[in-house]
């Protein structure tokens, strides 16, 4: 520990005032340890019994297969899926307030794109000053308390090496311009102090089969700047996140955020 850490250590000492007595906790630890040992023994015996039962069942099944079978297999039941509905709102948009200066700097315009918002996500259209469409920007927020493995699109199962932005924001940038119909600049950023994670993606016009029209209105560097801006993390409501019942309405990202 260094000099810098001393003030926190002193503060923590005060927090611990009023600590209750330990009593006979040491004996209680050893009683619990004996209980754990007994439980493990029981589990071991139970597992042995289960293995015996499985062997007996397998023997029974093998025997019955040698006899004529008249049973019919039960038909699988259809499952019912439910869909969730996002709750739109049209109050002042702090997310747009973060995006607008960057877009204005490129002499473009940005405006909400219907369906423009839901729980934990927003989407916007970008156009040039003549009104010609220049694609979309989609943003979603997640809560990822644990460390996440940032995906590597070309190597599933591997974790990308993260970059660091100020104030404890780790991020990875994904740029894909090979598919002329879906050119993407995306950044996934996670604030490690509270696990809030943002995915920000700019795409060009889709389905035009034209590399120029399909080019996103914002560059990868601009998307990175937006996604790592502390103001954007705080622009969503504290309880907003793209998970749970309403997550079906969240935008589909080129590189999805891996959720636990």
């Amino acid at each position, binding site marked *: 520990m260094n000099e810098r850490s001393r003030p926190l250590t002193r503060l923590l000492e005060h927090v*611990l005032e009023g600590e209750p007595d330990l009593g006979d906790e040491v004996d209680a630890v050893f009683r619990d340890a004996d209980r754990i040992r007994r439980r493990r023994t029981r589990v071991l015996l139970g597992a042995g019994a289960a293995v015996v039962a499985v062997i007996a069942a397998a023997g029974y099944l093998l025997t019955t297969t040698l006899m004529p079978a008249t049973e019919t297999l039960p038909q699988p039941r259809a499952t019912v899926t439910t869909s969730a509905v996002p709750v739109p709102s049209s109050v002042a948009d702090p997310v747009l307030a973060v995006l607008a200066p960057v877009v204005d700097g490129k002499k473009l315009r940005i405006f909400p794109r219907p369906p423009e918002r839901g729980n934990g996500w927003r989407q916007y259209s970008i156009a040039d000053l003549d009104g010609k469409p220049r694609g979309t920007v989609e943003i979603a927020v997640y809560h990822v308390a644990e460390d996440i493995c940032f995906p590597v699109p070309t190597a599933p199962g591997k974790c990308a090496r993260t970059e660091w932005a100020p104030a404890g924001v780790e991020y990875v940038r994904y740029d894909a311009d090979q598919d002329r119909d879906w050119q993407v600049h995306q950044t996934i950023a996670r604030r*490690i102090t509270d696990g809030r994670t943002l995915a920000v993606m700019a795409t060009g016009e889709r389905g035009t089969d034209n590399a120029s029209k399909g080019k996103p209105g914002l560059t990868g560097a601009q998307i990175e700047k937006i996604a790592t801006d502390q103001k954007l993390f705080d622009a969503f409501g504290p309880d907003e996140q793209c998970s749970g019942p309403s997550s079906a309405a969240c935008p589909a990202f080129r590189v999805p955020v891996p959720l636990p």
Partner: protein
Amino acid sequence: MSGDDDGLRDFVASRLPHLRRSAFLMCGDWELATELTRACLARVVADTRRGAVADPDVYAYADLMEACRRRNRRREHVFVAAAGAEGVAAESILLLDALHKLAPRCRAVLVLRHWDGFDVDAVGAMLDLDDERVAAYERAGLAALQKLLLESEAALSA
């Protein structure tokens, strides 16, 4: 440490108060901290007896931090004083509240580094993080804690 009961008893008696304080800083509740520490040390004792523990300190703190994380996954900003305890200073409550607004892993890094005094290597081993990540969590955690405390003080004085 061998698996003999005298050695284990000395280990438990010496580590129990420290572990319980760390658990309290992680969960903010003395009763829960006592329960988690007892369960953690019981596992250390049981596993040491069967020779499955290489470093009991690393094992104990790693196990305790994981137990606190599981029990406190939803960050409830609650401080529970010990039964019969005298009044707790407002500053202490504010500090605990600020600590509990941090993500569990970030809080664990601050507690292990700044309360328990472990070095970066040991904290990395306990939390299964590399050194760079421990340093990043520590820097960001200290900055966030400072910001939260300043906000709390401003709110109190308003």
